[in-house]
């Protein structure tokens, strides 16, 4: 791990710095919503905080982490230097500048439009420019990943691309497709609005373009966690990957089915009718399949490890697994949270049930659990796994790492379970202040406090995570850590079908699926223009 080492570390640290700040803001927000008086509690500050927290966790933590991890995978799995390191640094600095510009806009109070931007409400143009720079930087990363895989395939004709890299490039391809929606929205609608070039905006079209990005982006976040499931967890457990082919299949299924489903975020919207909502609902059911396949394949892989360690009987292999290793522990905890988060997702996807929970705290609880819980926990585990290779030091003990993972899981469950319940009780979202003098709302108070307690534990875990990583930087170099290695499949793979080694067919299918699922909804809005709404600008 040489040429990309510093680049990976730079990306990781921006991600985790944003994460730490956002965690503090998150706890303040929970405090502000509770019956207890929070300091500096005004609607102005609250929505500023929600915007900052959302942007940091959803755009900064995720994108920079994925870029850093991508560099690590590219160099480790392909055993060659990452192409275009200079471009990688340009991308990094562009994206970091974007974060700083956007943050300046947010913290000066000129961008309280939340991370989902709510046109016709308009923030300062710098907020949007900052985010465009982040996305542009990430596009450079995508190209690097594609070039790395293409170069390797040329140097190794007919060979299967190592699974970790195949999945990383699948994610890069997914990201390129995903960002088209929000890029179109920003370039053609929002930025002209923010610059004062137009005074009205077609809100329905805006929401539709954003929905294109909104679901696929969560799979962009999720795929690195699944890369860890397939290629790092079995290795950490001392076993083998049950099936390399199923892994590839799962990743291509994510690629094709995470995109044409964004309308399920608009189930309750009036700008689309039942027909296309049903079609995209149907496609959403299909995107559950790769997760269902993954759960089995990874369990089977762990079973191999457990039995190799002497586990007997139906469940003995579970006990025999090396739970003291952070990656193994994280996989188990992540799967546990995946039950709840995934189950919640199935409910959201069924529009009859979605009507009960749309825009209630259930939704907030769901995505904190599935992203903050299942996915980010694996981000921690990945960081712990690659940090020795990146810093050249070993962890003195795994105990602080495991404790941090436990705190995170317990904190997440304690925070989100009452939140799910309150959502079913009708507690609605994005409220700066609840009226606890209303008896109906007063009943919610104790549960909000329980959630707050969970949030505090999460903050402590977040800070511990950062300290754990810093501790490696501060240690004196000692015995060199073992090199990073990815899991090998139980049965060696010498060749795979071309469709599971490249993306041409899948790109074509994505194009067809998107044309079918989004063609009419977007095309119709462009042809039969809905009456536009007046732009509401920040700062008057």
């Amino acid at each position, binding site marked *: 791990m040489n040429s990309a080492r510093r680049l990976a570390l730079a990306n990781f640290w921006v991600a985790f710095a944003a994460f730490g700040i956002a965690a503090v803001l998150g706890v303040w927000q929970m405090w502000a919503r509770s019956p207890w008086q929070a300091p500096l509690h005004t609607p102005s500050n609250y929505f500023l905080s929600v915007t900052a927290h959302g942007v940091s966790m959803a755009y900064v933590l995720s994108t920079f982490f994925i870029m850093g991890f991508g560099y690590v995978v590219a160099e480790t799995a392909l055993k060659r230097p990452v192409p275009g390191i200079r471009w990688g640094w340009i991308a990094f600095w562009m994206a970091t500048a974007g974060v700083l510009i956007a943050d300046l806009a947010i913290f000066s109070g000129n961008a309280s439009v939340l991370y989902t931007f*709510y046109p*016709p409400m308009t923030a300062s143009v710098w907020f949007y420019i900052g985010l465009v720079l982040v996305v542009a930087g990430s596009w450079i990363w995508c190209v690097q990943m594609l070039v790395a895989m293409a170069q390797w395939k040329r140097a190794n004709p007919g060979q299967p691309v190592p699974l970790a890299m195949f999945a990383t490039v699948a994610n890069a391809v997914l990201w390129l497709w995903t960002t088209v929606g929000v890029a179109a929205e920003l370039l053609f609608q929002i930025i002209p609005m923010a610059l004062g070039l137009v005074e009205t905006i077609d809100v329905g079209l805006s929401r539709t373009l954003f929905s294109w990005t909104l679901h696929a982006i969560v799979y962009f976040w999720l795929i690195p966690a699944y890369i860890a499931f397939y290629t790092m967890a079995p290795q950490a457990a001392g076993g083998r990957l049950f099936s390399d082919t199923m892994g590839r299949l799962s990743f291509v299924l994510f690629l094709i089915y995470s995109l044409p489903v964004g309308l399920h975020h608009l189930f309750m919207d009036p*700008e689309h009718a039942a027909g296309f909502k049903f079609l995209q609902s149907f496609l959403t059911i299909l995107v559950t399949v790769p997760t269902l396949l993954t759960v089995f394949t990874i369990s089977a892989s762990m079973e191999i490890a457990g039995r190799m360690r002497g586990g007997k009987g139906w469940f003995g292999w579970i006990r025999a697994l090396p739970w003291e290793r952070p990656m193994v522990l994280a996989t188990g905890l992540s799967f546990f949270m995946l039950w709840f988060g995934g189950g919640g997702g199935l409910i959201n996807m069924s529009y009859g049930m979605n009507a009960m929970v749309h825009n209630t705290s259930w939704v907030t609880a769901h995505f904190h659990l599935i992203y903050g819980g299942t996915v980010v926990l694996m981000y921690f585990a990945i960081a712990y796994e690659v940090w020795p290779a990146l810093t050249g030091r070993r962890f003195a003990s795994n105990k602080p790492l495991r404790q941090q993972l436990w705190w995170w899981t317990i904190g997440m469950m304690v925070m989100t379970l009452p939140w799910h319940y309150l959502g079913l009780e009708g507690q609605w979202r994005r409220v700066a202040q609840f009226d606890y003098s209303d008896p109906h709302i007063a009943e919610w108070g104790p549960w909000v406090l329980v959630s707050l307690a969970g949030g505090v534990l999460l903050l402590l875990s977040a800070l511990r995570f950062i300290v754990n990583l810093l501790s490696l930087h501060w240690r004196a170099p000692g015995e060199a850590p073992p090199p990073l290695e990815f899991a090998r499949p139980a049965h060696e793979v010498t060749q795979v079908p071309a469709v599971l080694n490249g993306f041409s067919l899948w790109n074509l299918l994505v194009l067809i699926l998107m044309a079918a699922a989004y063609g009419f909804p977007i095309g119709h809005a462009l042809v039969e223009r809905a009456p536009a709404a007046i732009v509401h600008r920040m700062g008057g």
Partner: protein
Amino acid sequence: MAARTEQDVVRIETRWALAMCGVVLVILAAILYASLRIHVNPPSNVELIDPKTLHLSDEFTEANLGTRVGPDGAIVARIVATQFEFVPRCVVLPAGRRVTLRFASPDVIHGILVSGTNVNTMVVPGYVSQVHTEFQKTGDLLMPCHEYCGLGHSQMLATVRVVPADRFKPDADGRVSCEQR
């Protein structure tokens, strides 16, 4: 069953994949049943309306807001969602009868849910949102704005007063309002 050979792995994985396809089919069947037998649909009314001239429109003019029994006998509640109030702030609807709620916004995105029911819809400027439902229980139901619409979002609340059908008495013009009670 132990997976000794690659064929074993393929066989086991295929079985699992088929089982998962079965799960998918069950979910699909449930949604189809709900759609075809009890007509569960997401809000599905694509009707354009100009937010800039909403106050000049026939249907959403101030005097026509609230609950009215129309000439065709349909019970319709018309509500405007605006920063930071619902107009009117309270509507009366009968229990046990099919009712329709229609919403429009002259400014930004809002959203509503009626507490304790599955009435839930976004209100997007440029479109009329429409929900058909039948209330089962009587009482005062909270209807908050559930989508971020600005700094006053937290105070944007309305009440849906569900009364027993025999106490739902429209006046000569077909209107019922909370103040009458």
